[in-house]
């Protein structure tokens, strides 16, 4: 039991004071232990007192800190209130100033909108203008101005003014300048051009167009009719005074339509196979006519010279005369029969080919009609396939139809005319043979007899 208490006490002491426990001498007896405990207690209470004092001191210190922090907080809160008040005041002032600004900017903002719009319009106009062919790159600044969000500077406004004024002034001028030109085959060469206001560009007696998309001056692939183009040269060579010139008021629109229209050769090929057949008929007909014209002229000349001489030569009239001379002594009826026979032999040679020309003259419009009908068939086939909605599809077939008609008529007109010409000539020669040959022979006979 004692041992247990001892151990307990010892452990208590050890636990309560680790410092002392380490070097605490071991109790030799109970009294000694008591004494030791007492001493320890005294020491301990001393220690506790010390610690208490220490704690108190610390507590006081903390309280002081707390008070200090509180004071600080209060200070900061006051500061915050002050700043908040200042912020509100500023906010109010800002609102007032903003309002003031809006009022003062008022008219200026409206002007800004107008300026942007004007700059945009002007940029588009300058881009399309023929003046830009001579003075390129003017629209860039205006485009920037139209896009910009900032208020334009006074300098920019002045530039806008200058641009507008320049465009206006240049539009009223006829000016000469050198610029690269894209020719029909795509090559680029330097050319001296004359610009007529904002409407046309001419050079070397030709019209040029300015394409705003590519900023290029292009040679027109096809020029307008000669009457219009013929004035260009005089206009270009003139340096003072006035000279007439055809101007395209649509700024290239009409000239571009000229390019689209097919030329004569393209139209000719629209006729197709029938068109080529008609051309063949035309040339064969013309060849026959030429042959006839030459032959009839030669024979006519021979007959006319035969009229003056009594000795028969180798020509139709001469042959008839030689028949007369061979049968001079036969009786009248017989002679007449022989002469008629001789004339009948000559006539076909003079009439040869003339009927053919007439047939060709009649054939050509018929072939034209054939082409028309085949063209219309083509058109209706197109309508069957694609419907009648697109006039462009139909129009090509119809123009084929019409072109053959034109070719037919164009072939028929000269052939009809030439037919009347050669048939007139051959008829007059046949008249000479049929109605006059006997008379001529009689006159010669009379002269000889007389």
């Amino acid at each position, binding site marked *: 039991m004692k041992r247990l208490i001892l151990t307990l006490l010892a452990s208590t002491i050890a636990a309560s004071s680790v410092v002392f426990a380490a070097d605490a001498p071991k109790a030799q007896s109970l009294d000694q232990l008591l004494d030791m405990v007492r001493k320890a207690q005294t020491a301990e209470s001393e220690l506790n007192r010390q610690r208490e004092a220490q704690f108190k001191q610390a507590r006081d210190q903390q309280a002081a800190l707390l008070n200090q922090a509180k004071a600080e907080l209060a200070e900061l809160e006051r500061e915050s209130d002050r700043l908040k008040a200042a912020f509100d005041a500023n906010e109010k002032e800002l609102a007032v100033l903003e309002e003031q600004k809006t009022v003062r900017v008022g008219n200026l903002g409206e002007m800004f909108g107008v300026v942007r719009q004007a700059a945009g319009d002007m940029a588009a106009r300058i881009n399309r203008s023929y003046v830009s062919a001579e003075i390129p790159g003017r629209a860039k600044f205006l485009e920037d101005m139209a896009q910009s969000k900032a208020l334009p500077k006074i300098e920019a406004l002045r530039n806008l003014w200058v641009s507008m004024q320049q465009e206006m002034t240049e539009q009223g001028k006829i000016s000469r300048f050198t610029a690269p030109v894209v020719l029909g085959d795509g090559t680029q060469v330097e050319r001296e051009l004359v610009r007529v206001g904002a409407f046309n560009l001419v050079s070397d007696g030709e019209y040029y167009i300015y394409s705003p998309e590519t900023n290029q001056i292009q040679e027109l692939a096809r020029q307008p009719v000669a*009457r219009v183009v013929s004035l260009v040269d005089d206009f270009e060579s003139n340096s003072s005074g006035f000279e007439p010139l055809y101007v395209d008021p649509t700024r290239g629109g009409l000239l571009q*339509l000229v390019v*689209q*229209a*097919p030329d004569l050769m393209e*139209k000719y090929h629209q006729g197709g196979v029938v068109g080529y057949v008609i051309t063949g008929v035309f040339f064969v007909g013309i060849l026959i006519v030429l042959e006839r014209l030459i032959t009839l002229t030669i024979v006519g000349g021979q007959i006319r010279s035969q009229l003056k001489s009594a000795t028969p030569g180798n020509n139709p009239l001469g042959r008839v005369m030689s028949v007369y001379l061979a049968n001079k002594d036969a009786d*009248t009826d017989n002679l007449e029969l022989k002469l008629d026979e001789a004339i009948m032999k000559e006539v076909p040679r003079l009439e040869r080919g003339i009927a053919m020309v007439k047939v060709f003259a009649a054939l050509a419009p018929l072939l034209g009609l054939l082409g028309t009908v085949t063209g219309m068939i083509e058109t209706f086939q197109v309508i069957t396939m694609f419907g009648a909605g697109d*006039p*462009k599809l139909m*129009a*090509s077939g*119809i*123009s084929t139809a*019409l*072109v053959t*008609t*034109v070719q037919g*008529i*164009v072939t*028929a*007109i000269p052939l*009809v*005319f030439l037919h*009347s*010409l050669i*048939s*007139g000539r051959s008829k*007059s020669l046949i*008249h*000479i043979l049929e*109605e*006059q040959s*006997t*008379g*001529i*022979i*009689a*006159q010669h*006979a*009379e002269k000889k007899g007389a």
Partner: protein
Amino acid sequence: MTALTNLWEFVNRFMETGGPVMWIIAFVLFVLWALIIERWLYLQFEYPKEARTLIASWHARQDTSSWQARHIRQAWLSQATERLNTRIVLIKTLVAICPLIGLLGTVWGMINVFEAMSSQGSGNARLMANGISMATMPTMAGMVAAISGLFVAARLEALARNRAEQLADSLPHH
């Protein structure tokens, strides 16, 4: 001078509305009337003289009824008729050609109409109207030219035939 240029400009405009065919019609019309005037002058002034000398030389002949005389008379008549009728066939052909050229112009104009349609669609009536005027003007011009020549040509032909018959009557067999 300005009046003249204005007139020329007017004619040019008129011709342009009808297209190039108008110039062909104008040319044909010019030739036609030149020929008609030539014929009329011949019939009016030249032919009577020729007829008189012919009649005189026939009457101067002693022999007017033999085989020879008969044929000589026929030859003279034939020559006179031929001179009377030269170019009348040509005039008639030109008259006949005029409407044909007009038709050519019509078809040409229609081609322009369809060309305008094929390049611009049928929406643009003004472009098509250009072709239509090109189609109608030559027809009209061709008709007017033909009508103007038709009557005169018929008249000239009848006149020539008349004169030939008169001449045949004036050369009697004695």
